[in-house]
C-alpha cells in the first residue's frame, strides 16, 4: 500500500521535503482534521505539490506492517494537540479555565433544536428489519428520502433517483471508497489548496491514493477577482506538472462551499471546472457538505446537481452529509450521489465496512422527510445563529486589525496572521499555534490545509457565545 515510488514524489521544486522525525509529535491544530505536516520549502514559486504523506517515514515496529507503522504515525501525529485539548477541555462548570476548541469544524449552535427533534416519538421506532443486515447501499426508505431531499435542496432540474444514492457512515468513508474504486495504488486526485486536510488521510489509509495540491494565492493577480481564486489555468498547470512527474491523476476534488476559505463557486466557474475535467477524462468529486450552511442570503449558492446539464455525468460524483448542515458530525451519516452505476455498485460493495445502524438510518429518513421543521424551524434559526456568531468574531478580528476572508458560508473564518510571523515560516506558524494552545484556544494552522503561505489560520465560529467570548478575549499575540 505505501510502496510509493519515492523518486517521483520528491521532485525538488514542487514537493515539500520529507517529514522530519521531530514532526512526529506535531499536530495539525485541528484534532479531527488530521494531517501530517512537513518542513516547508519555499524557495521557488509553487504552482502545485504532490502530496506524499509517507515520504521519509520508516517503520521500526516489530508488530506492525510497514503500512501499519505509517497508519499509526498518522494517529500519533494528530493525537498530540488533540490529546492536550481532551485532557483540559473547557466546561463552563467543571473546567472554566480549560481549552476552547475553535479548531474542529462543528456546529454547536443548534443542539437544542436537534435534540428536541430527534427525541420526538417518530424517531424512536424499533423494528426487526432495522436490526438485521440491510441492503449494503443503505435501506431503500432512506435512499428514497435522500434522493427527494437532494432533489429539493440542490434544486435539481429533474428528480434524483434513489438508485444513484449510496449511504455510508460519513463523507470520510465516501472519499475512502471512491479513492479505492477509482484509482490504483499511488495514483492521484487534484485538489485546490488550501483544503480540508483530513482528506489526505481519507484517501490514503485504505486506498493509498495521493493528492496533488493546486496551490492558490492570497494575492489577487492577473484575471483573478478574489484571493485564493481557483481558475482552469491553475488546474491545467497542476495537471501538467503532475503528469510530467509521471503521476497519474484520476480525478479532481472540489469542496463547495469551500473549506477553509468559505468560497462558493459560481455556476459558470463550476461549469468550467467540470469542462476541464471532462477534457482530461477526470472524475470530479464534489463535496457539498456545507451546502445548507450558507448563512448570508446574498450569496447565491448553486449545487452541482442544479446544473441543467453536467458535462460528464458519468464522472461526476456528489457527496453530502448531515455532519455540518445538521450539526451532527457524531452521527456518521454521509451519502454519495452518482449516475455511474458501476461506481455506485463498487462503492456499495465496500459498504460492509462503512455501514450505519438501521435505527439511525430510520432517524435520518425521518429527519430529512420533515421539510416543515427544516424550512420553518431549523434552517432559519441555524442561519440566524451562524450569522450572529460570525458577526461577533468578524467584528472582534476587525477590531484587532486582523485581515480575514469570510464569504458567508461554512463555520469558519480564514484569518491572515502573517503580520505576527516576522520571518514568515511554517515553524513560526506552528509556534504561534502552540502559543494559542498555551492560552487555552485550539485553532487550526494553514499548513494543515496545505496552504502554501505560512501565517493563515482557520477559526471556527459556530460555537456558543460565552465560549467564543472567552476564546477571543484570550491574550492575542
Amino acid at each position, binding site marked *: *500500500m505505501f510502496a510509493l*515510488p519515492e*523518486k517521483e514524489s520528491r521532485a525538488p521544486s514542487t514537493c515539500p521535503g520529507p517529514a522530519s522525525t521531530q514532526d512526529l509529535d506535531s499536530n495539525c491544530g485541528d484534532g479531527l482534521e488530521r494531517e501530517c505536516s512537513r518542513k516547508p520549502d519555499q524557495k521557488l514559486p509553487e504552482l502545485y505539490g504532490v502530496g506524499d504523506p509517507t515520504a521519509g517515514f520508516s517503520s521500526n515496529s516489530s*508488530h*506492525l*506492517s510497514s*503500512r*501499519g507503522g505509517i*497508519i*499509526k504515525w*498518522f*494517529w500519533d501525529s494528530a493525537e498530540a494537540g488533540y490529546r492536550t485539548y481532551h485532557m483540559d477541555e473547557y466546561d463552563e462548570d467543571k473546567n472554566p479555565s480549560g481549552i476552547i476548541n475553535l479548531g474542529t469544524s*462543528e456546529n*454547536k449552535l443548534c*443542539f437544542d433544536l*436537534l*435534540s428536541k427533534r*430527534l427525541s420526538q416519538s417518530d*424517531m*424512536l421506532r*424499533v*423494528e*426487526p*428489519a432495522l*436490526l*438485521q*443486515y440491510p*441492503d449494503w447501499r443503505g435501506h431503500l426508505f432512506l435512499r428514497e428520502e435522500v434522493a427527494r431531499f437532494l432533489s429539493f435542496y440542490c434544486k435539481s432540474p429533474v428528480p434524483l433517483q434513489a438508485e444513484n444514492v449510496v449511504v455510508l*457512515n*460519513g463523507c*470520510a*468513508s465516501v472519499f475512502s471508497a471512491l479513492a*479505492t*474504486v*477509482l484509482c*490504483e495504488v499511488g*495514483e492521484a486526485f487534484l485538489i485546490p489548496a488550501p483544503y480540508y486536510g483530513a482528506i489526505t488521510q*481519507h484517501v490514503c*489509509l*485504505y486506498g493509498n491514493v495521493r493528492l496533488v495540491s493546486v496551490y492558490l494565492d492570497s494575492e489577487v493577480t492577473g484575471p483573478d477577482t478574489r484571493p485564493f481564486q481557483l481558475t482552469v489555468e491553475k488546474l491545467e498547470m497542476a495537471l501538467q506538472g503532475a503528469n510530467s512527474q509521471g503521476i497519474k491523476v484520476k480525478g479532481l476534488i472540489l469542496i463547495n462551499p469551500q473549506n477553509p476559505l468559505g468560497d462558493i463557486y459560481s455556476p459558470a466557474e463550476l461549469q468550467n471546472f467540470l469542462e476541464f475535467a471532462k477534457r482530461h477524462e477526470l472524475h470530479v468529486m464534489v463535496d457539498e457538505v456545507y451546502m445548507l450552511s450558507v448563512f448570508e442570503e446574498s450569496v447565491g449558492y448553486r449545487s452541482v446537481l442544479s446544473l441543467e446539464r453536467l458535462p460528464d455525468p458519468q464522472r461526476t460524483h456528489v457527496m453530502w452529509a448531515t455532519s455540518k448542515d445538521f450539526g*451532527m*458530525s*457524531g*452521527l456518521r451519516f454521509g451519502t454519495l450521489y452518482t449516475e*455511474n*452505476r*458501476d*461506481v455506485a455498485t*463498487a462503492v*456499495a*460493495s*465496500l459498504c*460492509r*465496512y*462503512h*455501514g*450505519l*445502524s438501521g*435505527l*439511525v438510518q430510520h432517524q435520518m429518513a425521518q429527519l430529512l422527510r420533515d421539510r416543515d421543521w427544516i424550512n420553518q424551524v431549523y434552517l432559519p434559526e441555524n442561519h440566524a445563529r451562524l450569522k450572529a456568531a460570525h458577526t461577533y468574531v468578524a467584528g472582534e478580528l476587525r477590531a484587532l486589525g486582523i485581515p480575514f476572508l469570510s464569504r458567508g458560508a461554512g463555520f469558519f473564518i480564514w484569518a491572515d496572521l502573517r503580520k505576527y510571523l516576522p520571518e514568515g515560516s511554517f515553524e513560526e506558524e506552528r509556534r504561534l499555534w502552540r502559543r494559542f494552545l498555551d492560552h487555552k484556544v485550539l485553532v487550526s494552522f494553514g499548513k494543515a490545509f496545505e496552504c502554501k503561505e505560512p501565517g493563515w489560520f482557520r477559526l471556527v465560529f459556530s460555537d456558543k457565545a460565552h465560549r467564543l467570548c472567552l476564546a477571543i478575549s484570550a491574550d492575542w499575540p
Partner: protein
Amino acid sequence: MDETRDGEGSSQPVEAKTKAQGMSHQSDVLPCDQLRDQVIGNQSSHTQLMETLLHLRQTVDDCITQLTTRPPQLDLPLEEQRHNQATGEQEAFLRRVVNLLQSGAMWGLGLQAPRPTLGPRDDAGGGQQAQLSRQLDQLVHQLSHLEVAFVSHDLSNRGIDISAFERSKFQDFKTYQGDKYHEDKNTMGFINLGVSENKLCTDLMTERLSRSDMNHLEDALLQYSDQRGQPFLREEVARFLTYYCKSPARLDPENVVVLSGCCSVFSALATVLCDPGEALLTPTPFFGGLVMGSYLYSKVELMPVHLDSEITDGSARPFQLTVDKLEQALLEATLKGKKVRGLLLINPQNPLGDVYSRDSLEEYLEFAKRYNLHVIIDELYMLSVFDDSVTFHSVLSMESLPDPNRTHMIWGTSKDFGISGFRFGALYTHNKEVASAVSSFGFLNGISGITQYKLCRLLQDREWIDKVYLPTNHSRLKAAHRYITNKLKALKIPFLNRGSGLYVWMNLKEYLQPCTFEEELLLHHRFLGNKLILSPGKTYMCKEPGWFRLIFSDKPLPLKLAMHRFYEVLAEQKRDLRVKQLEDPQKE
C-alpha cells in the same frame, strides 16, 4: 462477521484443473453477440464455458500475483517500467473481461443449468414455465448489464475486482430481497438459511431497545468523538468482556477499539498487521466472507489450513485442527514464497460449530508464538453456546497469554444479540501500537454516537442479559437446533452436532454424483430453485465437496417450511440420481 449473501461459490479461489480451450489470452475481443448465442443457444456448453473462464481467471490471477509480488518498480529502468505498465494494462483488460463474464454469466447460467436435467416435477405446471421465462428475462437483463459494464472505463482495476466480486452476490441478494418469504404476505418467497442471523429473539430485543433509557441524547453524542469510540462505550465493553470472557484480571478500556462491525475491525487489523500480498493462515472450512473482506480493501491473502472430515491419526473428531496441520500449512506457504504474518481463528468456529478446548487453544497460541505470528481470534459467537455441556474458553480467560502483544480478539453484537444491523464490532488487544494504528480507521469505520449510547445501555444491563435474554435465547436456539437435527437424522444426513453457533454443518455427499464442486453448486441452485437459500461448502473453502451450512436460528414457521422444501429437493435429487444410475450401465 458479515455474511456472504447467498453462499455463492464464485468468490473462491479456483483450483483450476481445467483444460483451457477456445479462448487464448490474445483474444482481447470477445464479441458479446457470440457470447449471448453461446449462453442462450447452447446449454450443454455451460460447464465447458465455465471451466474455461475459471481457468482463464486463474491464469490472470497468477500473472497478477506475479506482478504484484515483484519488487517495487522504482529500481527498474524506465523502459521496463513502460513494458510492465503495458502488460499490466493488457492483463487488467483480460481480468475485466473474465470477471465480468464470471460474475454476470455464471449466475444466470447457474440458475438455468439444472433445469434441463429436471424430471417431471410434481408441482410443475404454469408456474414453472413462468419461472423459466422470468429467469430468461433476468439472464438477458444481466447480459445487457454486462455489455454496459464492458465499455466502462471508470473503475480502477481494484474497483472492478471489488465490483465483480459483489455483483454476483448482489444480483442474488436483490432477487432474494425482491421475493423474501413473509409469514402473511409472501409465503412462497425465498427462505434464507444462508445468512447467519439470529431471528429468534427479535421480540426481546425490540422490547429492550424501545425502553426509554435507550433514547437519551446529549450534545457529545452528536459531535466527533474519540476515534477509538466513546470512552463510556469502551469502558462498558471492557467490563462486559471481563465478565463474559471470564478474564482473570480486569480488562482495560484503553485496549478496546470499537468500529462499525467486525468486518471493519478485521479489515483494519489486517491492514495494519500485513502489507499487501502478505498472508494469514486460517483453518478451513471457515466463514468465507472474510476472504473477500481481507482482500477488498487490504489486499491481504488467506492461506487455508485444510481440515479433513475423516478422523485420522492424532485427531479425535472430524475437521480437527492440530498443530501438525498448522506447521504443515505454514511450511507450504513459506515454500510458495508467501510471507505469513498471522493466524486467524474463529472460536466458536463457523461453520463447524467447534469450540476449542483450553489445551488446544494454548497449543495454537504457542505455535503462533514460535513463529512470531499474530493471532487474530474472532469470538463472535461466544455467547451463542447453547448446549450446557459445552464449555467455551475465551482467549481472554487465559491466565497468561503466550504472546500477549500478538494476540488480538474480535467480538461484536451481531450474532450473540442478533443485531447485525447495528454495525458494531470491538477489538481487544494488549498491543498499544496495534490499537493506535487501528484507531486511525475510527474516522472511516466509525459508529454513530447515538448507536454507541444504545450499545452501552444494552451491554450494561447485566440483569436483563443474564436473567431474560441469554436464557431465552439459549432455549430457543436449543429448540430450533433440536428440530433441525431431528429432521436431518430422519433423513439420515450426517452432520456435526456441536451445540454452539447458529448453524449446522451437514454432509450431502450422498446426493452428489459424481461428488464434485460442480455438482455441489448444481444442488445449491436446485435449493435456490425451490426458494431455499443454503450455503455450499465451497464458500467456506472446504476441500471436500458436498458439505452445506444451514442456519437454524429462524422462527418455527419458516423453519418448518424450509425443511419441507429441503426435503423436496433432496427427494427430487435422489430420483434423478436413480434414473442416472439406471441409464449409465445401459450406456456401457
